[in-house]
């Protein structure tokens, strides 16, 4: 008797078995059901299920191996075909691989850059438990943040708050001369730090030589970095040697490894806090000193935060609350310091830019997109050449899935070859790249797991993404029509290809417009009028020299006696340097009208030397001569910040306790770069804290003048290091970061455009080749070479024009957002769009024009004879 199976859909069991044994599903299923029923009868349902699971699981290995084996034979064939195709069409393959590897090279560099920028201070042991304390002062106008807290808090924390395992202050001082034996070195203030011993642990600084157990715990000792040790002592053993910082003696107790390049902590010399000469000023509950803590592993950081906030408010009772300000301590993860500190007022702090990371991320994405579109377009375009192969494979029994698999394999192969070339190029170009970006890593540090895995991901992702469209097109050919020779594939995929080309060009035009606008902004910042005269100013560093009311004018006279020196002025700061951040209020208004004023001191010649415009003075006399000590000049922004109507109202006021007279108001000028707004600022005529001497020098025989000034300096301050610079050069240093970004951006834009045009070049070549016969016939019928070239070019030019029309509004929108980052910015110049558009058209004409003319000039005899 035969059993009639009702017609129905496959059950799950059937489907699984069909998946495992596609060819012999029927009989295998029969076997399985036989066993299943047997088990069900003898041992029950559960064991029958177990039997089923066992059946499936145990058959996997053998089935899998046999499949792999079958695939691999085909795979070998695919590889062989891929190599043959690439060999036969060298031009196309070259363009494909060249474009992709150029794109990958850019991408690899950007990945390295982003990886580096995001790696700052995340390499410390237990980095997730290490924090920086930040003071936040909330006012009605917003929140002001300062790096650091009152220095007494650290002492309180280490004595009373066990939740913090470690805590350390870090306070840098002013420039100093360091004397070793009879050798003299100048150290920047930011490289000499007073600190606590826990710093070594918080920043995981390995000690190389000397005492490692009592580092920084003995007053009068110093810890120096490895490079500094080499600089000071050469190959000698530095431990136990004496260094003299200005006048104080320190004994080198140990040498630590240099802080890593991607750490915000930078120093040459570390000195125990107890040896800090400013300690008495710095031990109170006011002020801001960088403080780092390491919390215990189980500590809730929110709790810790509220705890220290409470301590600070208790100790400082009236300081903030009475002014309507709310003080709190915020904690910032040590690995966030580099990228997330833009709203924290800080000095000499290495700071990264999240915007730049986003910008470069997008650039990498766009470049890869452009390169992949090239790849997709060229592969689709030349699909017609492979139509016969596809037809034959289909006739021989290949199904569509296999063909898609084949073409995707091919594209992954091409992508991997390109990636390999890109990797080699990146290794070759690594050192110029490092110079450009100032990234401080070795090549060997690059090949970490993240990099390798992201590379592999990228190869597969791009291989599949760029290869799937051509694969679908190719595998869709009908063998009957292909083999009859009537296939017209070139036209079928034309529209999508055109859209891709338009997208590609729109992207590269946006990049081009962006880089033009950005370099314009940079030019503007560098050349804008700053409100003071920065030319021909020689600044001499006077830190550490004793300058006071008694000697300052005689020192100035000494320098002025050099004929080329036309003016001289002492001040506590000069444009481009740091200013004090003081809380100052008009007399009698402390509660209601306190603002943070940027403050410096200067002598009476400062205004005339820098050509600053004075709007209003208190006396009738505008020449400063009757300014008494302690009288202050404030800028217009300060007038506005205090809420005074006009300068006239300001000059009758006094500040603070009534002893700071406002002597006048001067016009706003840019003390810092144009990235920042002009802040309320004051210059006090106080003969104190003079760190810089500004000299106005004539522009002829500059080097001679400098040597005269140097010898004068040596005469006045024997045994001091002479250090000078020109203000205009130094001021441009403020734009170094932007300059670097602009340069990198420019290079990547070039690459993007180059890749896009490489693709266009290939497409033009292909189009010309497809139309060989048409061109021949046109020529026979009397077309001119020019006429045919224009005919061929027209197609590409109108694509470019469409992409220009798309690109302009988009780039306007994007650049508008970007420029918001700058306090003082250009209005977007319209000509930059025209320039970018014209450049695009021009390069397109060049790249496709060459191909078109070549095609137009072929002799019709040759082109028509080819059949």
């Amino acid at each position, binding site marked *: 008797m035969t059993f009639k*199976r009702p017609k129905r859909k496959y059950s799950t069991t059937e489907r699984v078995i069909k998946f495992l044994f596609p060819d012999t599903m029927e009989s295998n299923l029969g076997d399985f059901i036989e*066993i299943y029923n047997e088990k069900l009868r003898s041992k029950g349902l559960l064991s029958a299920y177990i039997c089923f699971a*066992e059946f499936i699981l145990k058959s996997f290995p053998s089935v899998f191996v046999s499949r792999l084996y079958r695939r691999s034979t085909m795979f070998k064939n695919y590889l062989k075909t891929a190599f043959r195709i690439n060999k036969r069409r060298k031009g196309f393959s070259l363009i494909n691989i060249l474009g992709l590897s150029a794109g990958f090279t850019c991408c690899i560099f950007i990945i390295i850059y982003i990886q580096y920028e995001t790696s700052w201070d995340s390499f410390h042991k237990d980095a997730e438990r290490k924090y920086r304390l930040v003071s936040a002062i909330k006012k009605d106008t917003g929140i002001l943040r300062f790096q650091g807290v009152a220095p007494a808090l650290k002492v309180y924390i280490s004595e009373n708050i066990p939740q913090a395992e470690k805590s350390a202050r870090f306070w840098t001082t002013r420039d100093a001369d360091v004397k070793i034996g009879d050798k003299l070195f100048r150290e920047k203030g930011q490289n000499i730090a007073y600190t606590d011993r826990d710093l070594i642990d918080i920043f995981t600084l390995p000690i190389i030589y000397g005492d490692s157990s009592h580092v920084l715990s003995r007053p009068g000792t110093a810890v120096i970095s490895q490079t500094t040790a080499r600089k000071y002592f050469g190959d000698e053993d530095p431990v136990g040697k004496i260094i003299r910082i200005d006048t104080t003696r320190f004994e080198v107790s140990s040498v630590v490894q240099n802080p890593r390049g991607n750490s915000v902590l930078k120093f040459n010399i570390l000195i125990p806090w107890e040896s800090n000469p400013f300690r008495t000023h710095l031990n109170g509950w006011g002020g801001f000193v960088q403080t780092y803590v390491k919390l215990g592993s189980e500590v809730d950081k929110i709790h810790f935060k509220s705890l220290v906030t409470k301590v600070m408010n208790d100790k400082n009772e009236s300081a903030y609350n009475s002014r309507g300000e709310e003080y709190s301590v915020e904690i910032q993860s040590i690995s966030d310091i580099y990228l997330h500190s833009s709203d924290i007022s800080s000095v000499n702090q290495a700071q990264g830019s999240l915007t730049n990371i986003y910008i470069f991320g997008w650039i990498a994405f766009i470049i890869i997109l452009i390169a992949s579109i090239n790849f997709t377009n060229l592969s689709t375009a030349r699909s017609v050449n492979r139509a016969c192969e596809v037809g034959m494979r289909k006739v021989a029994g290949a199904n569509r899935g296999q063909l898609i698999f084949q073409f995707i394999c091919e594209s992954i192969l091409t992508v991997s070859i390109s990636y390999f070339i890109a990797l080699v190029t990146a290794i070759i170009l690594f050192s110029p790249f490092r110079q450009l970006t100032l990234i401080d890593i070795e090549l060997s540090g690059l090949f970490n797991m993240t990099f390798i895995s992201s590379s592999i991901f990228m190869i597969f992702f791009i291989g599949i993404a760029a290869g799937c469209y051509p694969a679908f097109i190719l595998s869709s050919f009908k063998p009957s029509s292909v083999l009859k020779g009537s296939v017209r594939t070139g036209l079928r995929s034309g529209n999508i290809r055109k859209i891709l080309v338009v997208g590609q060009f729109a992207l590269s035009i946006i990049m081009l417009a962006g880089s033009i606008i950005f370099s314009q902004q940079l030019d503007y910042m560098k050349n804008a009028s700053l409100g003071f005269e920065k030319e021909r100013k020689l600044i001499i560093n006077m830190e550490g020299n004793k300058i006071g009311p008694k000697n300052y004018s005689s020192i100035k006279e000494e320098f002025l006696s050099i004929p080329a020196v036309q003016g001289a002025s002492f001040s506590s700061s000069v444009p481009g340097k740091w200013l004090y951040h003081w809380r100052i209020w008009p007399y009698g208004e402390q509660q209601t009208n306190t603002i943070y004023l940027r403050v410096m001191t200067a002598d009476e010649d400062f205004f005339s030397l820098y050509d600053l415009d004075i709007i209003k003075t208190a006396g009738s006399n505008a020449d400063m001569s009757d300014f008494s000590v302690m009288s202050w000049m404030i800028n217009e922004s300060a007038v506005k910040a205090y809420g005074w109507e006009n300068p006239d109202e300001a000059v009758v006021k006094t500040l603070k306790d009534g002893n700071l007279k406002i002597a006048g108001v001067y016009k706003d000028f840019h003390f810092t770069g144009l990235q920042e707004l002009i802040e309320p600022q004051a210059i006090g005529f106080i003969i104190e804290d003079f760190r810089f001497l500004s000299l106005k020098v004539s522009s002829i025989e500059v080097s001679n003048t400098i040597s005269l000034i140097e010898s004068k300096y040596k005469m006045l301050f024997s045994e001091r290091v002479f250090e000078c610079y020109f203000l205009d050069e130094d001021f441009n240093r403020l734009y170094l970061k932007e300059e670097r970004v602009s340069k990198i951006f420019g290079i990547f834009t070039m690459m993007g455009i180059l890749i896009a045009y490489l693709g266009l070049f290939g497409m033009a070549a292909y189009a010309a080749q497809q139309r060989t016969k048409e061109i021949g016939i046109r020529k026979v019928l009397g077309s001119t070479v020019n006429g045919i070239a224009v005919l061929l070019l027209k197609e590409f030019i109108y694509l470019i024009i469409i992409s220009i029309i798309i690109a302009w509004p988009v780039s306007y929108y994007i650049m508008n957002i970007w420029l918001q980052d700058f306090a003082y910015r250009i209005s977007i110049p319209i000509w930059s769009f025209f320039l970018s558009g014209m450049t695009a058209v021009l390069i397109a004409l060049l790249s496709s024009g060459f191909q078109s003319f070549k095609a137009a000039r072929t002799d019709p005899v040759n082109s028509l004879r080819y059949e």
Partner: protein
Amino acid sequence: MKILTRQEEMFLLAVWRLAENAYGVTIAEKLSETTGKKWIVGQVYVPLERLEQKGYLRSYFSEPVSERGGRSKRLYRITKEGLNALIEVKSVENSLWKDINMISLEHGKENS
């Protein structure tokens, strides 16, 4: 001709022993019985297929069987090449084992 592998030998012998009734289930059972190791039906298909490709086995379908859900059995039968291969592997084995008896092997095991 290549000498059969041990697995091939096992499979061919199982099919030969089962004569007219050699299909997935019975072959797996016979193998479990003769080797003492448990064989699952799912494991035998691929080796059987490969033997068929090499020409040692031939397969045909039986009439549909009701207790199998109306499906036919895929029955295997050994071919002439298969038999030749078995004969050859046996003679190789014989010459390999010539003059060696189990007692001396057991003795060697104790000494080593």
